[in-house]
């Protein structure tokens, strides 16, 4: 057999390297039934746990050969930290997972062949966080990395703040060595704790972790020989026993009536588990870590390799007169049709539950309470279709007729939702895809169909199933594969790349057609012709594609020549205006487009805000480039990353240099605090932590309040009819506050802002953030007002024809530019309050910001802290004034009713200020005198409900007028605080709405 030949070579190589000696069977390691009574019966031990501290989890996983006894056999295995099950890693959403993988294994022998689908290099490793929705790139969940023997590697995986809490796991994932390493026991639980875990009923429960493993050690106690370790007929004839956390047949103690939460993880390679707990139901609340919103009571629960299931077990009451009862957790009989071993599997006892002691009265959570932790909305709209068909044919393990190849990848587009058809042409295979979970319709225990989200799903032979998935947040390359890991190592895996919208179609990467799959199936080797056809497509499309030619960089990162050319171009535009103020090639024209109601004007407080400014920047950049070619032909607008400590005192150095053309009088000049500096400076108001959250928290484009990125639309295609609606999440507070309070001077007012050359770099960063949001959001495209014309902007401005519309601005790639940008390190969260339980939410970074004018109290609203939060909680401020002559900020506090509202007290601000809204003064014909503002309190109230349920707190609002007067010649009135008071405040989402004026 082809495979056998390969493994003889492989084993010979190992022997030469001295890592596997040919010797007689080791006593105790014979292939014979395990004496469960003798080697089992110990209390279930949870793996050691490593938790995050201050948002960081720092762990080291050392991979080395270790001796560990299993059922009388002294095994010699590749293990993490010498443990049969790796330590449990526990994080919360928003944490960073820093895992230092230290590979202390010996060097590998040369690979057995040139075929990368020959299992090889068993001592190379890396780290995969199975099920996490995190970046697949760089040193995050990147399974294309290899940590060679003798090397170490620092993984840094950022868990987004909106990541669903749940039960996940980690294991190595280098192609060629995955099965050997995971099979040896290299796997551990990865718990993301949050949300559902703080439901009072669940918090009371004892939590158990079950990592099921099938370690196929041979008669020497080793897992070295691929063929002897895996493959049909191996496990079931070896009489090895499934272990739980490395233990044989452990014991779990429960009291009658007690409910425990069991987090069950199938960390094995190819055994199907069909779990049955005698006399009990397995009440499933989460599948693959993701909350279902239901309690599904199973008598028999299927766990395939890679699967997880969170179940609630209620111990039975003891019959009268009984002090103790025992129940066995079985892996039930599995018929060959469902088995991954393709044989009828016998029942195997896995663990024992002992019920004894005084009875307990515990409650299950309600399904209504669970429902709000369902992590994703159902996918109702499909943008396209994909197909993945597993097959074993001609000695090859294939996906869509193709063995794994680093030269082939399936290309998907970020933001799209697609329906996949999965099938197997030979035996059963668990399908697993990294990064993005998928939605699947299964039959529930009541016999009815139900939707669940998961990341691994058994595909049965000749039984096509459909799943739906969205490619959200992360671009990059990862894999899909069969989670029978020896199949994966032998080629049943495919690279998947998620690209930005607007990236080139790539024929080489396109998914295969039905015709192709059929051809591969019938011919066995028929993929060759299709491969050639696909390669031809690739050549054609690659010729047609050119990456964006314009690259916008940080103004601090420009090469000296690039900076000089940019400054020269700005000077040229100013000279043009000096010579002819009415020239549409001069600086004044582009400033007037923004500042003047009769030329533009700029658009704000509606969903054309971001499109308008994107088009404005493009036109300005075009003018810069044509101002003095060839010197200026390659100029782009550099951005100012105002989430970082500035290179100058308050602004980038070149922008605050009085001799620079980018300098403008009248800006605020107070220094921004450097690390460790607190006196005589202001803290950075919008560090990346805050902006990152803004990008995360606003999943939708069109609408009002913090959940929508673009703002509210009124769909008026004609500019003159358009009215201001409501700010999007980026416009307020960050954009507005930066204009009026951080920069000030001309930037304080929309009628003068673009006179200050900082305007362009400031808005380039706003544009970058929109681009960044598009790349990571589920709603990456503008979905409203697509045909709306952008006020005053024409692609042919000389003749005022060919108007810009919203749809022209949706893709930066289509506009031929991109940003070179790396987000700042996520800084430590704003100073956490010392007593977390006293105030269990973070204060806003601006809590430390000093204002020349004291905040004015604007009102308070009672908030009775609920025991649980079942829906979004928000504070809606109606008719928030937007005066024509002053910008101002609203500050929102959440504080105990026993504490008087003291917005001017620095200590009070540090503890209780949790959000802002910012109102930039009205401008132009569209300006409405007021807007509505919605503040999201859900996370804060959820946090409060854990420790403060039943207490009376208050939501209070203060307003802070901009320090400086308007300077544009309009009749200026002092900002009377009364004029900034909103009309009404309404708390929503807490049962009976209440109102306060």
């Amino acid at each position: 057999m082809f495979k056998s030949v390969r493994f003889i070579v492989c084993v010979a190589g190992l022997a030469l390297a001295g890592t596997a000696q040919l010797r007689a069977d080791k006593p105790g390691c014979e292939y014979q039934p395990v004496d469960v009574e003798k080697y089992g019966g110990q209390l279930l031990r949870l793996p050691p746990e490593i938790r995050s501290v201050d948002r960081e989890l720092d762990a080291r996983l050392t991979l080395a050969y270790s001796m560990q006894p299993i059922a009388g056999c002294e095994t010699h295995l590749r293990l993490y930290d010498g443990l049969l099950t790796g330590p449990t890693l526990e994080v919360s959403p928003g944490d960073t997972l820093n895992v230092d993988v230290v590979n202390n294994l010996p060097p590998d022998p040369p690979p057995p062949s040139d075929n990368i689908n020959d299992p090889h290099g068993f001592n190379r490793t890396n780290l995969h966080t199975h099920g996490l929705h995190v970046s697949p790139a760089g040193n995050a969940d990147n399974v294309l990395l290899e940590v060679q023997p003798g090397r170490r590697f620092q993984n840094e995986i950022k868990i987004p703040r909106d990541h669903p809490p749940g039960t996940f796991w980690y294991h190595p994932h280098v192609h060629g060595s995955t099965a050997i390493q995971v099979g040896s026991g290299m796997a551990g639980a990865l718990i993301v704790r949050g949300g559902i875990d703080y439901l009072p009923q669940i918090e009371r429960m004892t939590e158990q972790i079950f990592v099921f493993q099938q370690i196929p050690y041979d008669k020497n106690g080793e897992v070295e020989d691929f063929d002897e370790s895996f493959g049909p007929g191996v496990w079931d004839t070896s009489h090895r026993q499934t272990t739980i956390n490395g233990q044989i047949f452990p014991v779990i103690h429960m009291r009658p009536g007690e409910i425990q939460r069991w987090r069950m993880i199938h960390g094995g390679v190819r055994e199907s588990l069909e779990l049955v707990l005698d006399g009990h139901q397995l009440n499933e609340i989460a599948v693959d870590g993701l909350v279902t919103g239901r309690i599904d009571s199973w008598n028999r629960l299927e766990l395939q390799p890679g699967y997880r299931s969170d179940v609630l077990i209620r111990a039975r009451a003891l019959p009268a007169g009984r002090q103790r009862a025992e129940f066995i957790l079985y892996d039930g009989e599995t018929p060959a049709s469902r088995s991954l071993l393709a044989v009828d599997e016998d029942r195997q006892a896995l663990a024992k539950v002992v019920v004894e002691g005084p009875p307990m009265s515990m409650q299950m959570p309600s399904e209504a309470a669970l429902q709000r932790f369902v992590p994703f909305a159902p996918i109702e709209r499909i943008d396209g279709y994909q197909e993945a068909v597993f097959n074993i044919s001609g000695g090859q393990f294939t996906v869509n007729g193709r063995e794994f190849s680093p030269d082939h990848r399936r290309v998907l587009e970020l933001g799209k939702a697609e329906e996949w058809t999965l099938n197997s042409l030979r035996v059963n295979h668990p399908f697993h895809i990294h990064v993005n979970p998928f939605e699947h319709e299964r039959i529930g225990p009541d016999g009815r169909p139900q939707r669940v989200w998961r990341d691994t799903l058994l595909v049965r032979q000749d039984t096509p199933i459909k799943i739906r998935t969205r490619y959200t947040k992360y671009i990059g390359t990862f894999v899909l594969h069969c989670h029978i890991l020896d199949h994966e190592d032998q080629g049943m895996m495919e690279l998947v790349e998620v690209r930005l919208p607007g990236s080139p179609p790539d024929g080489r990467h396109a998914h295969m057609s039905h015709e192709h799959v059929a051809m591969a199936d019938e011919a066995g080797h028929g993929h060759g012709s299709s491969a050639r056809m696909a390669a031809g497509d690739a050549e054609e499309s690659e010729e047609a594609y050119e990456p964006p030619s314009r690259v916008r960089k940080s103004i601090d990162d420009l090469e000296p020549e690039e900076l000089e050319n940019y400054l020269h171009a700005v000077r040229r535009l100013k000279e043009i205006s000096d010579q002819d103020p009415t020239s549409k090639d001069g600086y004044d024209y582009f400033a007037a487009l923004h500042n003047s109601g009769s030329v533009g004007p700029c658009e704000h407080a509606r969903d054309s805000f971001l499109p308008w400014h994107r088009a404005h920047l493009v036109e300005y950049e075009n003018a810069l480039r044509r101002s003095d070619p060839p010197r200026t032909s390659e100029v782009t607008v550099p951005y100012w990353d105002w989430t970082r400590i500035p290179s100058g005192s308050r602004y980038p150095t070149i922008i605050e240099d009085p001799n620079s053309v980018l300098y403008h009088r009248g800006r605020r000049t107070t220094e921004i605090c450097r690390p460790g500096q607190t006196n005589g400076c202001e803290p950075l108001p919008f560090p990346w932590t805050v902006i990152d959250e803004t990008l995360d928290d606003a999943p939708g484009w069109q609408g009002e309040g913090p959940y929508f990125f673009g703002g509210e639309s009124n769909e008026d295609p004609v500019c003159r009819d358009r009215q201001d609606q409501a700010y999007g999440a980026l416009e307020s507070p960050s954009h507005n506050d930066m204009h009026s309070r951080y920069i000030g001077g001309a930037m304080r007012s929309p009628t003068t802002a673009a006179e200050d050359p900082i305007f362009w770099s400031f808005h380039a960063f706003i544009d970058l953030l929109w681009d960044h949001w598009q790349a990571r959001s589920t709603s990456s495209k503008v979905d409203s007002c697509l045909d709306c014309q952008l006020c005053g902007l024409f692609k042919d401005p000389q003749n005022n024809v060919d108007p810009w519309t919203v749809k022209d601005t949706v893709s930066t790639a289509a506009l031929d530019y991109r940003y070179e940008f790396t987000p700042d390190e996520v800084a430590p969260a704003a100073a956490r309050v010392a007593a977390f339980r006293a105030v269990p939410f973070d204060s806003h970074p601006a809590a430390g910001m000093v204002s020349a004018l004291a905040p004015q109290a604007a009102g308070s609203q009672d908030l009775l802290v609920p025991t649980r939060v079942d829906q979004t909680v928000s504070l809606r401020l109606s008719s928030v004034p937007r005066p024509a002559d002053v910008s101002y900020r609203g500050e929102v506090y959440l504080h105990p009713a026993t504490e008087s509202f003291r917005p001017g007290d620095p200590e009070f601000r540090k503890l209780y200020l949790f959000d802002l809204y910012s109102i930039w003064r009205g401008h132009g014909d569209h300006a409405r005198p007021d807007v509505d503002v919605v503040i999201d309190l859900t996370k804060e109230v959820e946090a409060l409900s854990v420790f403060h349920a039943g207490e009376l707190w208050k939501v209070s609002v203060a307003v802070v007028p901009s320090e400086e007067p308007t300077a544009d010649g309009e009749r200026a009135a002092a900002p009377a605080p009364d004029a900034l008071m909103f009309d009404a405040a309404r708390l929503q989402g807490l049962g009976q709405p209440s109102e306060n004026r």
Partner: protein
Amino acid sequence: MPNENGNHREPVWELHIRPMFRLIDHEHMSWLDLWDYDTVWAKREAILGRVSDKSAPMPSYPTGGPWPDEWVSIFRRWIDNGGHKLDLGSPDSAGYEVKKTFDGIRISAWVQVPGEGYRAWLDIESVGATTRHYSLVVEAPLDDPGGPSTELEVRDEFKAGSVEKLIVVDADGRHELDVPT
């Protein structure tokens, strides 16, 4: 919403008091210049008595009728606060810039003010066919928050039209400025 600390805007002569005296009032009270701050301040109690006297309403009904109570109240508050008025400011040494812009004419200047919270602007006194009159005014904050002196830009923009001259009165005197063509 109630304003918990009761910090309201206080009336200022130029913005809130003088506009209450209409042209007809000014004409009828020719022996008393109601548009002159010093005169009104000197006669404040007498004026307050007349405008709040319900038995002999002033202004009289044939000339428009008496002030509403709110106006009387504002006048009284202005007196109680010490008769707040604006000051004239001065531009810095660069003086005034009158410039043609893409869509009009802009007059601007930079003014040094003593601290945070001060406001300055070019107040339009009158607009004629060929001339626009301004005062450069500065308003001190009610409660001076202190802080370092700072500079503010004052400006006005208008459509070019037939305007040829701008007249600005400031602390340094009267300035005539030509509008560029």
